[in-house]
Protein backbone atom coordinates (compact mmCIF):
# COMPACT_ATOMS: atom_id res chain seq x y z
CA UNK A 1 0.00 0.00 0.00
CA UNK A 2 1.62 3.23 -1.07
CA UNK A 3 0.78 6.73 0.08
CA UNK A 4 -1.56 7.47 -2.82
CA UNK A 5 -3.62 4.32 -2.28
CA UNK A 6 -3.97 5.15 1.40
CA UNK A 7 -4.99 8.73 0.66
CA UNK A 8 -7.52 7.56 -1.92
CA UNK A 9 -9.03 5.01 0.46
CA UNK A 10 -9.27 7.61 3.22
CA UNK A 11 -11.00 9.95 0.79
CA UNK A 12 -13.62 7.27 0.08
CA UNK A 13 -14.11 6.88 3.83
CA UNK A 14 -14.54 10.63 4.15
CA UNK A 15 -17.16 10.57 1.39
CA UNK A 16 -19.03 7.74 3.13
CA UNK A 17 -19.00 9.70 6.40
CA UNK A 18 -20.34 12.69 4.48
CA UNK A 19 -23.25 10.62 3.16
CA UNK A 20 -24.19 9.34 6.62
CA UNK A 21 -24.02 12.78 8.24
CA UNK A 22 -25.96 14.23 5.30
CA UNK A 23 -28.79 11.74 5.79
CA UNK A 24 -28.71 12.50 9.51
CA UNK A 25 -29.12 16.22 8.79
CA UNK A 26 -32.24 15.41 6.80
CA UNK A 27 -34.11 14.75 10.05
CA UNK A 28 -35.28 18.37 10.01
CA UNK A 29 -36.25 20.72 7.18
CA UNK A 30 -34.10 23.38 8.85
CA UNK A 31 -30.85 21.44 8.34
CA UNK A 32 -31.75 19.32 5.32
CA UNK A 33 -30.26 21.64 2.73
CA UNK A 34 -26.97 21.76 4.58
CA UNK A 35 -27.05 17.96 4.53
CA UNK A 36 -27.63 17.84 0.81
CA UNK A 37 -24.63 20.12 0.25
CA UNK A 38 -22.46 18.02 2.53
CA UNK A 39 -23.44 14.95 0.58
CA UNK A 40 -22.52 16.74 -2.67
CA UNK A 41 -19.15 17.61 -1.13
CA UNK A 42 -18.64 13.95 -0.22
CA UNK A 43 -19.40 12.99 -3.79
CA UNK A 44 -16.85 15.48 -5.13
CA UNK A 45 -14.21 14.09 -2.76
CA UNK A 46 -14.99 10.54 -3.92
CA UNK A 47 -14.79 11.45 -7.61
CA UNK A 48 -11.55 13.39 -7.03
CA UNK A 49 -10.14 10.33 -5.26
CA UNK A 50 -11.10 8.06 -8.14
CA UNK A 51 -9.50 10.42 -10.66
CA UNK A 52 -6.33 10.72 -8.55
CA UNK A 53 -6.07 6.98 -8.36
CA UNK A 54 -6.53 6.63 -12.13
CA UNK A 55 -3.94 9.33 -12.87
CA UNK A 56 -1.50 7.73 -10.45
CA UNK A 57 -1.88 4.29 -12.01
CA UNK A 58 -1.44 5.86 -15.45
CA UNK A 59 -3.22 3.00 -17.20
CA UNK A 60 -5.89 5.16 -18.83
CA UNK A 61 -5.50 5.85 -22.55
CA UNK A 62 -6.18 9.19 -24.19
CA UNK A 63 -9.30 7.72 -25.77
CA UNK A 64 -10.29 6.59 -22.29
CA UNK A 65 -10.06 10.16 -21.01
CA UNK A 66 -12.06 11.54 -23.91
CA UNK A 67 -14.75 8.88 -23.54
CA UNK A 68 -14.96 9.37 -19.78
CA UNK A 69 -15.12 13.15 -19.83
CA UNK A 70 -17.49 13.35 -22.78
CA UNK A 71 -19.82 10.82 -21.17
CA UNK A 72 -19.77 12.30 -17.69
CA UNK A 73 -20.09 15.92 -18.81
CA UNK A 74 -22.83 15.07 -21.31
CA UNK A 75 -24.76 13.09 -18.72
CA UNK A 76 -24.27 15.80 -16.11
CA UNK A 77 -25.63 18.43 -18.49
CA UNK A 78 -28.72 16.38 -19.27
CA UNK A 79 -29.25 15.64 -15.56
CA UNK A 80 -28.88 19.28 -14.62
CA UNK A 81 -31.35 20.44 -17.23
CA UNK A 82 -33.90 17.85 -16.10
CA UNK A 83 -33.43 18.78 -12.44
CA UNK A 84 -33.81 22.50 -13.17
CA UNK A 85 -36.77 22.33 -15.51
CA UNK A 86 -38.96 19.62 -14.02
CA UNK A 87 -42.28 20.77 -12.60
CA UNK A 88 -42.74 19.73 -8.98
CA UNK A 89 -45.77 17.63 -9.93
CA UNK A 90 -43.50 15.65 -12.26
CA UNK A 91 -40.74 14.96 -9.71
CA UNK A 92 -41.70 11.29 -9.27
CA UNK A 93 -40.98 10.45 -12.90
CA UNK A 94 -37.65 12.29 -12.89
CA UNK A 95 -36.60 10.53 -9.68
CA UNK A 96 -37.57 7.31 -11.42
CA UNK A 97 -35.40 8.17 -14.43
CA UNK A 98 -32.39 8.99 -12.21
CA UNK A 99 -33.02 5.64 -10.56
CA UNK A 100 -33.03 3.95 -13.93
CA UNK A 101 -29.72 5.46 -15.02
CA UNK A 102 -28.11 4.59 -11.68
CA UNK A 103 -29.18 0.97 -12.05
CA UNK A 104 -28.17 1.07 -15.71
CA UNK A 105 -24.69 2.37 -14.86
CA UNK A 106 -24.23 -0.39 -12.27
CA UNK A 107 -25.25 -2.97 -14.87
CA UNK A 108 -22.94 -1.49 -17.52
CA UNK A 109 -19.86 -1.50 -15.30
CA UNK A 110 -20.57 -5.11 -14.39
CA UNK A 111 -20.94 -5.98 -18.09
CA UNK A 112 -17.78 -4.03 -18.89
CA UNK A 113 -15.89 -5.89 -16.20
CA UNK A 114 -17.15 -9.21 -17.52
CA UNK A 115 -16.34 -8.45 -21.16
CA UNK A 116 -12.84 -7.24 -20.29
CA UNK A 117 -11.96 -10.26 -18.18
CA UNK A 118 -13.77 -13.00 -20.08
CA UNK A 119 -11.29 -13.09 -22.94
CA UNK A 120 -8.16 -13.00 -20.84
CA UNK A 121 -7.42 -13.84 -17.23
CA UNK A 122 -10.94 -14.97 -16.33
CA UNK A 123 -12.89 -13.77 -13.33
CA UNK A 124 -12.43 -14.88 -9.76
CA UNK A 125 -15.43 -16.69 -8.36
CA UNK A 126 -16.06 -13.87 -5.91
CA UNK A 127 -16.00 -11.26 -8.65
CA UNK A 128 -18.23 -13.52 -10.71
CA UNK A 129 -20.96 -13.79 -8.07
CA UNK A 130 -21.08 -10.02 -7.62
CA UNK A 131 -20.90 -9.39 -11.37
CA UNK A 132 -23.75 -11.78 -12.10
CA UNK A 133 -25.89 -10.26 -9.34
CA UNK A 134 -25.32 -6.84 -10.86
CA UNK A 135 -26.16 -7.89 -14.40
CA UNK A 136 -29.48 -9.15 -13.00
CA UNK A 137 -30.44 -6.37 -10.57
CA UNK A 138 -29.09 -3.50 -12.68
CA UNK A 139 -31.15 -4.17 -15.83
CA UNK A 140 -34.29 -5.02 -13.78
CA UNK A 141 -34.00 -1.62 -12.08
CA UNK A 142 -33.28 0.10 -15.38
CA UNK A 143 -36.27 -1.17 -17.35
CA UNK A 144 -38.58 -1.27 -14.32
CA UNK A 145 -37.84 2.36 -13.44
CA UNK A 146 -38.32 3.49 -17.03
CA UNK A 147 -41.73 1.80 -17.14
CA UNK A 148 -42.61 3.36 -13.78
CA UNK A 149 -41.56 6.78 -15.10
CA UNK A 150 -43.63 6.17 -18.25
CA UNK A 151 -46.67 5.29 -16.15
CA UNK A 152 -46.25 8.39 -13.99
CA UNK A 153 -45.84 10.58 -17.07
CA UNK A 154 -48.80 8.96 -18.79
CA UNK A 155 -46.80 7.55 -21.71
CA UNK A 156 -47.55 4.04 -20.51
CA UNK A 157 -51.05 3.22 -19.29
CA UNK A 158 -51.25 3.76 -15.54
CA UNK A 159 -53.83 1.00 -15.39
CA UNK A 160 -52.50 -2.39 -14.40
CA UNK A 161 -51.66 -4.06 -17.68
CA UNK A 162 -52.51 -7.70 -17.16
CA UNK A 163 -53.02 -10.18 -19.96
CA UNK A 164 -53.47 -13.94 -19.90
CA UNK A 165 -50.14 -15.64 -19.48
CA UNK A 166 -48.37 -12.53 -18.17
CA UNK A 167 -47.44 -14.28 -14.94
CA UNK A 168 -46.26 -17.24 -16.99
CA UNK A 169 -43.90 -15.00 -18.98
CA UNK A 170 -42.53 -13.51 -15.75
CA UNK A 171 -41.98 -17.01 -14.39
CA UNK A 172 -40.31 -18.12 -17.64
CA UNK A 173 -38.01 -15.09 -17.57
CA UNK A 174 -37.06 -15.89 -13.99
CA UNK A 175 -36.18 -19.46 -14.92
CA UNK A 176 -34.13 -18.34 -17.95
CA UNK A 177 -32.33 -15.64 -15.95
CA UNK A 178 -31.52 -17.88 -13.01
CA UNK A 179 -30.53 -20.81 -15.22
CA UNK A 180 -28.24 -18.72 -17.41
CA UNK A 181 -26.72 -17.07 -14.33
CA UNK A 182 -25.92 -20.46 -12.85
CA UNK A 183 -24.23 -21.38 -16.12
CA UNK A 184 -22.06 -18.27 -15.85
CA UNK A 185 -21.32 -18.96 -12.19
CA UNK A 186 -20.23 -22.50 -13.10
CA UNK A 187 -17.24 -20.85 -14.75
CA UNK A 188 -18.37 -20.55 -18.37
CA UNK A 189 -17.68 -16.93 -19.20
CA UNK A 190 -19.70 -16.78 -22.40
CA UNK A 191 -20.72 -13.38 -23.76
CA UNK A 192 -23.77 -14.90 -25.47
CA UNK A 193 -25.08 -16.21 -22.16
CA UNK A 194 -24.30 -12.85 -20.53
CA UNK A 195 -26.43 -11.16 -23.19
CA UNK A 196 -29.21 -13.65 -22.50
CA UNK A 197 -29.14 -12.82 -18.76
CA UNK A 198 -29.21 -9.07 -19.45
CA UNK A 199 -32.14 -9.42 -21.88
CA UNK A 200 -34.09 -11.65 -19.49
CA UNK A 201 -33.49 -9.15 -16.66
CA UNK A 202 -34.59 -6.20 -18.81
CA UNK A 203 -37.75 -8.05 -19.83
CA UNK A 204 -38.37 -9.06 -16.22
CA UNK A 205 -38.22 -5.40 -15.15
CA UNK A 206 -40.92 -4.62 -17.69
CA UNK A 207 -43.24 -7.53 -16.86
CA UNK A 208 -42.77 -6.81 -13.15
CA UNK A 209 -43.84 -3.15 -13.41
CA UNK A 210 -46.53 -3.26 -16.11
CA UNK A 211 -49.22 -4.96 -13.96
CA UNK A 212 -48.82 -2.43 -11.14
CA UNK A 213 -51.42 0.32 -11.07
CA UNK A 214 -50.83 4.06 -10.86
CA UNK A 215 -52.03 4.24 -7.26
CA UNK A 216 -49.28 1.88 -6.13
CA UNK A 217 -46.48 3.88 -7.74
CA UNK A 218 -45.17 5.34 -4.44
CA UNK A 219 -44.36 1.79 -3.31
CA UNK A 220 -42.80 0.81 -6.63
CA UNK A 221 -40.61 3.90 -6.94
CA UNK A 222 -39.33 3.35 -3.40
CA UNK A 223 -38.67 -0.33 -4.04
CA UNK A 224 -36.75 0.34 -7.27
CA UNK A 225 -34.73 2.98 -5.42
CA UNK A 226 -33.76 0.32 -2.93
CA UNK A 227 -32.80 -2.09 -5.76
CA UNK A 228 -30.52 0.52 -7.30
CA UNK A 229 -28.80 1.04 -3.96
CA UNK A 230 -28.17 -2.68 -3.66
CA UNK A 231 -26.92 -2.85 -7.26
CA UNK A 232 -24.41 -0.09 -6.48
CA UNK A 233 -23.31 -1.79 -3.26
CA UNK A 234 -22.71 -4.99 -5.22
CA UNK A 235 -20.64 -3.05 -7.75
CA UNK A 236 -18.62 -2.02 -4.68
CA UNK A 237 -18.04 -5.72 -3.90
CA UNK A 238 -16.77 -6.27 -7.46
CA UNK A 239 -14.07 -3.62 -7.15
CA UNK A 240 -13.64 -3.91 -3.37
CA UNK A 241 -14.52 -0.25 -2.74
CA UNK A 242 -15.94 0.82 0.62
CA UNK A 243 -17.37 4.08 -0.68
CA UNK A 244 -19.66 2.23 -3.05
CA UNK A 245 -20.59 -0.43 -0.54
CA UNK A 246 -21.55 2.09 2.14
CA UNK A 247 -23.29 4.49 -0.27
CA UNK A 248 -25.23 1.66 -1.88
CA UNK A 249 -26.17 0.13 1.46
CA UNK A 250 -27.50 3.48 2.72
CA UNK A 251 -29.68 3.85 -0.36
CA UNK A 252 -30.82 0.24 -0.11
CA UNK A 253 -31.88 0.83 3.50
CA UNK A 254 -33.57 4.13 2.68
CA UNK A 255 -35.54 2.66 -0.22
CA UNK A 256 -36.45 -0.39 1.83
CA UNK A 257 -37.78 1.67 4.74
CA UNK A 258 -39.84 3.89 2.45
CA UNK A 259 -41.22 0.85 0.62
CA UNK A 260 -42.50 -0.65 3.85
CA UNK A 261 -43.85 2.68 5.15
CA UNK A 262 -45.75 3.34 1.93
CA UNK A 263 -47.20 -0.15 1.79
CA UNK A 264 -48.35 0.16 5.42
CA UNK A 265 -49.94 3.55 4.74
CA UNK A 266 -51.88 1.96 1.89
CA UNK A 267 -52.89 -0.95 4.06
CA UNK A 268 -51.28 -3.45 1.71
CA UNK A 269 -48.34 -5.79 1.78
CA UNK A 270 -45.33 -5.18 -0.45
CA UNK A 271 -45.96 -8.61 -1.99
CA UNK A 272 -49.54 -7.80 -2.97
CA UNK A 273 -48.40 -4.52 -4.55
CA UNK A 274 -45.77 -6.34 -6.58
CA UNK A 275 -48.26 -8.95 -7.74
CA UNK A 276 -50.14 -6.03 -9.17
CA UNK A 277 -53.54 -5.56 -10.73
CA UNK A 278 -54.91 -3.34 -8.00
CA UNK A 279 -54.53 0.43 -8.32
CA UNK A 280 -56.51 1.36 -11.37
CA UNK A 281 -55.60 4.95 -12.03
CA UNK A 282 -57.29 8.19 -11.20
CA UNK A 283 -60.93 7.42 -10.65
CA UNK A 284 -61.08 4.00 -9.09
CA UNK A 285 -63.72 1.43 -9.96
CA UNK A 286 -66.90 3.23 -10.93
CA UNK A 287 -69.01 0.14 -10.54
CA UNK A 288 -69.86 -1.42 -7.22
CA UNK A 289 -72.64 -0.75 -4.79
CA UNK A 290 -74.71 2.34 -5.45
CA UNK A 291 -73.30 5.58 -4.08
CA UNK A 292 -73.97 6.22 -0.43
CA UNK A 293 -77.70 6.52 0.17
CA UNK A 294 -78.00 7.79 -3.41
CA UNK A 295 -77.84 11.35 -2.13
CA UNK A 296 -80.51 10.75 0.50
CA UNK A 297 -78.38 11.32 3.54
CA UNK A 298 -75.57 13.50 2.26
CA UNK A 299 -75.68 17.24 2.75
CA UNK A 300 -74.72 19.33 -0.27
CA UNK A 301 -73.29 22.76 0.31
CA UNK A 302 -72.24 25.61 -1.95
CA UNK A 303 -68.97 27.55 -2.11
CA UNK A 304 -70.60 30.34 -0.09
CA UNK A 305 -71.67 27.94 2.68
CA UNK A 306 -68.15 26.57 2.86
CA UNK A 307 -66.69 30.08 2.89
CA UNK A 308 -68.96 31.19 5.73
CA UNK A 309 -67.99 28.19 7.87
CA UNK A 310 -64.31 28.85 7.34
CA UNK A 311 -64.45 32.62 7.63
CA UNK A 312 -65.83 32.26 11.17
CA UNK A 313 -63.65 29.38 12.22
CA UNK A 314 -60.67 29.86 14.48
CA UNK A 315 -58.93 26.66 13.46
CA UNK A 316 -59.05 25.10 10.01
CA UNK A 317 -57.25 21.93 8.92
CA UNK A 318 -56.87 21.32 5.20
CA UNK A 319 -56.55 17.67 4.14
CA UNK A 320 -55.04 17.49 0.65
CA UNK A 321 -55.11 14.20 -1.24
CA UNK A 322 -54.06 12.78 -4.56
CA UNK A 323 -56.98 14.55 -6.25
CA UNK A 324 -55.53 17.93 -5.30
CA UNK A 325 -52.22 17.07 -6.94
CA UNK A 326 -53.99 15.64 -9.98
CA UNK A 327 -55.97 18.87 -10.38
CA UNK A 328 -52.77 20.95 -9.85
CA UNK A 329 -54.67 22.84 -7.15
CA UNK A 330 -51.84 23.18 -4.61
CA UNK A 331 -51.46 26.90 -5.30
CA UNK A 332 -55.17 27.47 -4.66
CA UNK A 333 -54.96 25.48 -1.42
CA UNK A 334 -51.98 27.58 -0.33
CA UNK A 335 -53.79 30.80 -1.23
CA UNK A 336 -56.87 29.77 0.75
CA UNK A 337 -54.64 28.96 3.71
CA UNK A 338 -52.97 32.36 3.45
CA UNK A 339 -56.34 34.16 3.32
CA UNK A 340 -57.71 32.20 6.30
CA UNK A 341 -54.46 32.60 8.26
CA UNK A 342 -55.30 36.28 8.73
CA UNK A 343 -57.92 35.37 11.32
CA UNK A 344 -57.47 31.66 12.06
CA UNK A 345 -54.93 28.92 12.64
CA UNK A 346 -54.54 26.95 9.44
CA UNK A 347 -52.75 23.60 9.20
CA UNK A 348 -52.29 21.01 6.50
CA UNK A 349 -52.79 17.37 7.51
CA UNK A 350 -50.79 15.17 5.18
CA UNK A 351 -51.25 11.45 4.86
CA UNK A 352 -48.10 9.55 3.83
CA UNK A 353 -49.58 8.47 0.49
CA UNK A 354 -51.03 11.84 -0.50
CA UNK A 355 -49.29 12.41 -3.83
CA UNK A 356 -47.48 10.21 -6.27
CA UNK A 357 -44.36 9.33 -4.30
CA UNK A 358 -43.47 9.31 -0.59
CA UNK A 359 -43.77 12.86 0.78
CA UNK A 360 -44.70 14.34 -2.60
CA UNK A 361 -47.56 16.50 -1.26
CA UNK A 362 -45.18 18.31 1.10
CA UNK A 363 -42.97 19.35 -1.80
CA UNK A 364 -45.96 20.59 -3.80
CA UNK A 365 -47.19 22.70 -0.88
CA UNK A 366 -43.69 23.94 -0.06
CA UNK A 367 -43.41 25.11 -3.66
CA UNK A 368 -46.70 26.98 -3.20
CA UNK A 369 -45.02 28.81 -0.28
CA UNK A 370 -46.73 27.00 2.58
CA UNK A 371 -44.28 27.14 5.51
CA UNK A 372 -43.17 23.63 6.47
CA UNK A 373 -44.16 24.31 10.08
CA UNK A 374 -47.79 24.22 8.88
CA UNK A 375 -47.39 20.79 7.28
CA UNK A 376 -48.43 18.18 9.84
CA UNK A 377 -47.66 14.48 9.54
CA UNK A 378 -50.46 12.04 10.17
CA UNK A 379 -49.82 11.40 13.87
CA UNK A 380 -49.33 15.08 14.70
CA UNK A 381 -52.39 16.03 12.65
CA UNK A 382 -54.59 13.51 14.42
CA UNK A 383 -53.90 15.32 17.70
CA UNK A 384 -55.19 18.54 16.12
CA UNK A 385 -58.52 17.39 14.65
CA UNK A 386 -60.52 17.31 17.93
CA UNK A 387 -59.90 21.05 18.40
CA UNK A 388 -60.48 22.03 14.77
CA UNK A 389 -63.61 23.96 13.81
CA UNK A 390 -63.46 22.97 10.17
CA UNK A 391 -61.64 20.19 8.36
CA UNK A 392 -61.51 20.79 4.61
CA UNK A 393 -60.89 17.59 2.62
CA UNK A 394 -59.71 18.20 -0.93
CA UNK A 395 -59.28 15.21 -3.22
CA UNK A 396 -58.68 12.67 -0.45
CA UNK A 397 -60.96 9.71 0.06
CA UNK A 398 -59.98 6.35 1.57
CA UNK A 399 -57.43 7.93 3.93
CA UNK A 400 -60.28 9.76 5.70
CA UNK A 401 -62.72 6.85 5.94
CA UNK A 402 -63.64 6.17 9.60
CA UNK A 403 -64.54 2.60 8.56
CA UNK A 404 -60.81 1.89 8.77
CA UNK A 405 -61.12 1.84 12.55
CA UNK A 406 -63.54 -1.12 12.34
CA UNK A 407 -62.60 -4.62 11.22
CA UNK A 408 -64.23 -6.39 8.32
CA UNK A 409 -63.85 -4.09 5.31
CA UNK A 410 -61.18 -3.38 2.69
CA UNK A 411 -59.72 -0.38 4.52
CA UNK A 412 -59.72 -1.98 8.01
CA UNK A 413 -56.53 -1.23 9.86
CA UNK A 414 -55.36 1.37 7.37
CA UNK A 415 -53.84 4.37 9.14
CA UNK A 416 -56.23 7.27 8.54
CA UNK A 417 -56.57 10.95 9.31
CA UNK A 418 -59.28 11.33 11.97
CA UNK A 419 -61.10 14.00 10.01
CA UNK A 420 -64.44 12.99 11.57
CA UNK A 421 -63.27 14.30 14.94
CA UNK A 422 -63.34 17.91 13.72
CA UNK A 423 -66.40 19.99 14.71
CA UNK A 424 -67.45 20.20 11.08
CA UNK A 425 -66.17 18.79 7.81
CA UNK A 426 -66.25 20.11 4.27
CA UNK A 427 -65.40 17.76 1.40
CA UNK A 428 -64.56 19.06 -2.07
CA UNK A 429 -65.02 16.24 -4.53
CA UNK A 430 -66.05 15.88 -8.13
CA UNK A 431 -68.60 13.12 -7.56
CA UNK A 432 -69.54 10.43 -5.11
CA UNK A 433 -67.11 8.06 -6.87
CA UNK A 434 -65.15 5.61 -4.79
CA UNK A 435 -61.48 5.68 -3.86
CA UNK A 436 -59.05 2.89 -4.70
CA UNK A 437 -60.50 0.65 -2.03
CA UNK A 438 -63.82 0.74 -3.90
CA UNK A 439 -66.01 1.27 -0.84
CA UNK A 440 -68.28 4.02 0.44
CA UNK A 441 -66.70 6.63 2.65
CA UNK A 442 -68.68 6.89 5.89
CA UNK A 443 -67.34 10.38 6.43
CA UNK A 444 -69.61 11.66 3.63
CA UNK A 445 -72.84 10.59 5.37
CA UNK A 446 -71.80 12.06 8.72
CA UNK A 447 -74.37 14.77 9.61
CA UNK A 448 -71.63 17.32 10.24
CA UNK A 449 -70.11 16.80 6.78
CA UNK A 450 -71.00 19.14 3.94
CA UNK A 451 -70.27 17.97 0.41
CA UNK A 452 -69.22 20.57 -2.14
CA UNK A 453 -69.22 18.90 -5.55
CA UNK A 454 -66.63 20.56 -7.74
CA UNK A 455 -63.26 20.19 -9.37
CA UNK A 456 -60.58 20.83 -6.72
CA UNK A 457 -59.02 23.79 -8.50
CA UNK A 458 -62.26 25.53 -9.50
CA UNK A 459 -63.93 24.76 -6.16
CA UNK A 460 -61.07 26.21 -4.12
CA UNK A 461 -61.07 29.26 -6.38
CA UNK A 462 -64.77 29.89 -5.67
CA UNK A 463 -64.25 29.43 -1.93
CA UNK A 464 -61.32 31.85 -1.90
CA UNK A 465 -63.40 34.48 -3.69
CA UNK A 466 -66.28 34.03 -1.23
CA UNK A 467 -64.02 34.16 1.82
CA UNK A 468 -62.36 37.32 0.54
CA UNK A 469 -65.79 38.93 0.01
CA UNK A 470 -66.84 37.97 3.54
CA UNK A 471 -63.64 39.18 5.17
CA UNK A 472 -63.74 42.46 3.25
CA UNK A 473 -67.36 43.25 4.18
Amino acid at each position, binding site marked *: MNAVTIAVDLAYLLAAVGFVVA*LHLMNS*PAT*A*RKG*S*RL*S*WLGMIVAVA*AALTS*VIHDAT*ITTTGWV*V*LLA*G*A*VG*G*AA*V*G*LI*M*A*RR*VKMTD*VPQVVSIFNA*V*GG*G*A*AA*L*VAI*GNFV*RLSGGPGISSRGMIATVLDIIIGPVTFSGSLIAAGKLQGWVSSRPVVFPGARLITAALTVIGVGASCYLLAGHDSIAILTLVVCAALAFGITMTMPIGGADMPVVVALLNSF*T*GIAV*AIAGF*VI*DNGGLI*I*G*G*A*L*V*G*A*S*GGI*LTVLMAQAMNRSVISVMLGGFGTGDSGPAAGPAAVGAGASIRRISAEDAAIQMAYASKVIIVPGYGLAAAQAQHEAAELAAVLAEHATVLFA*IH*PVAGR*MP*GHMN*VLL*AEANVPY*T*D*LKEMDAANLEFPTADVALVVGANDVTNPAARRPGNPVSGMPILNVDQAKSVIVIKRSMGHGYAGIDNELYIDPKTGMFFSDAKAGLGEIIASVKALVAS
Partner: protein
Amino acid sequence: MTTSLMSDIYMFVLAVLVGYEVITKVPSTLHTPLMSASNAIHGIVIIVAVILASQARTSADYVLAFVAAFFAGMNVVGGYGLTDRMLQMFRKRAASVAHDGKESS
Protein backbone atom coordinates in the same frame (compact mmCIF):
# COMPACT_ATOMS: atom_id res chain seq x y z
CA MET B 1 -9.27 -12.39 -0.74
CA THR B 2 -11.60 -14.07 1.70
CA THR B 3 -10.64 -11.61 4.44
CA SER B 4 -11.41 -8.64 2.25
CA LEU B 5 -14.70 -10.20 1.12
CA MET B 6 -15.60 -10.74 4.76
CA SER B 7 -14.73 -7.17 5.70
CA ASP B 8 -16.79 -5.95 2.71
CA ILE B 9 -19.77 -7.91 4.00
CA TYR B 10 -19.25 -6.48 7.50
CA MET B 11 -19.15 -3.00 6.03
CA PHE B 12 -22.33 -3.58 4.00
CA VAL B 13 -24.33 -4.95 6.91
CA LEU B 14 -23.19 -2.22 9.30
CA ALA B 15 -23.96 0.47 6.72
CA VAL B 16 -27.48 -0.92 6.27
CA LEU B 17 -27.98 -0.72 10.06
CA VAL B 18 -26.62 2.83 10.22
CA GLY B 19 -28.85 3.74 7.28
CA TYR B 20 -31.86 2.27 9.06
CA GLU B 21 -31.14 4.26 12.23
CA VAL B 22 -30.55 7.53 10.43
CA ILE B 23 -33.37 7.27 7.91
CA THR B 24 -36.14 6.26 10.29
CA LYS B 25 -35.61 9.69 11.91
CA VAL B 26 -36.35 11.59 8.70
CA PRO B 27 -39.86 13.11 8.96
CA SER B 28 -42.35 12.11 6.27
CA THR B 29 -42.44 15.79 5.24
CA LEU B 30 -39.00 15.25 3.72
CA HIS B 31 -39.49 11.82 2.19
CA THR B 32 -39.40 13.06 -1.40
CA PRO B 33 -36.16 15.03 -0.93
CA LEU B 34 -34.79 12.04 1.02
CA MET B 35 -35.48 9.77 -1.89
CA SER B 36 -33.94 12.24 -4.29
CA ALA B 37 -30.90 12.63 -2.02
CA SER B 38 -30.39 8.90 -1.71
CA ASN B 39 -30.84 8.73 -5.46
CA ALA B 40 -27.94 11.15 -5.79
CA ILE B 41 -25.84 9.08 -3.40
CA HIS B 42 -26.13 5.98 -5.55
CA GLY B 43 -24.60 8.10 -8.27
CA ILE B 44 -21.32 7.18 -6.58
CA VAL B 45 -21.34 4.38 -9.12
CA ILE B 46 -19.57 7.02 -11.25
CA ILE B 47 -16.37 5.87 -9.56
CA VAL B 48 -16.66 2.50 -11.26
CA ALA B 49 -17.32 4.24 -14.56
CA VAL B 50 -14.01 6.08 -14.05
CA ILE B 51 -12.21 2.80 -13.33
CA LEU B 52 -13.89 1.14 -16.32
CA ALA B 53 -12.68 3.95 -18.59
CA SER B 54 -9.16 3.62 -17.19
CA GLN B 55 -9.03 -0.07 -18.10
CA ALA B 56 -10.76 0.23 -21.48
CA ARG B 57 -8.74 -0.93 -24.50
CA THR B 58 -11.24 -2.13 -27.14
CA SER B 59 -14.03 -0.19 -28.82
CA ALA B 60 -16.62 -2.28 -26.97
CA ASP B 61 -14.96 -1.22 -23.70
CA TYR B 62 -15.05 2.41 -24.74
CA VAL B 63 -18.73 2.30 -25.67
CA LEU B 64 -19.63 0.70 -22.34
CA ALA B 65 -17.48 3.21 -20.44
CA PHE B 66 -19.05 6.12 -22.31
CA VAL B 67 -22.63 5.04 -21.62
CA ALA B 68 -21.83 4.18 -18.00
CA ALA B 69 -20.18 7.60 -17.48
CA PHE B 70 -23.15 9.31 -19.14
CA PHE B 71 -25.69 7.51 -16.96
CA ALA B 72 -23.71 8.02 -13.78
CA GLY B 73 -23.03 11.69 -14.52
CA MET B 74 -26.74 12.25 -15.11
CA ASN B 75 -27.53 10.40 -11.88
CA VAL B 76 -25.12 12.43 -9.72
CA VAL B 77 -25.69 15.93 -11.04
CA GLY B 78 -29.42 15.51 -11.64
CA GLY B 79 -29.93 13.93 -8.23
CA TYR B 80 -28.17 16.66 -6.29
CA GLY B 81 -29.63 19.42 -8.45
CA LEU B 82 -33.18 18.23 -7.88
CA THR B 83 -32.67 17.63 -4.14
CA ASP B 84 -31.28 21.10 -3.60
CA ARG B 85 -34.06 22.68 -5.66
CA MET B 86 -36.71 20.96 -3.57
CA LEU B 87 -35.07 21.67 -0.23
CA GLN B 88 -34.74 25.40 -0.87
CA MET B 89 -38.56 25.51 -1.13
CA PHE B 90 -38.99 24.38 2.47
CA ARG B 91 -39.20 27.58 4.46
CA LYS B 92 -40.22 28.58 7.92
CA ARG B 93 -43.15 30.91 8.31
CA ALA B 94 -41.12 34.00 9.16
CA ALA B 95 -38.49 33.56 6.46
CA SER B 96 -38.62 36.22 3.81
CA VAL B 97 -39.20 35.06 0.28
CA ALA B 98 -35.93 33.83 -1.15
CA HIS B 99 -34.42 35.48 -4.18
CA ASP B 100 -33.00 33.49 -7.07
CA GLY B 101 -33.49 30.35 -5.01
CA LYS B 102 -30.62 31.40 -2.77
CA GLU B 103 -31.13 31.36 0.93
CA SER B 104 -28.72 32.40 3.62
CA SER B 105 -27.89 29.27 5.53
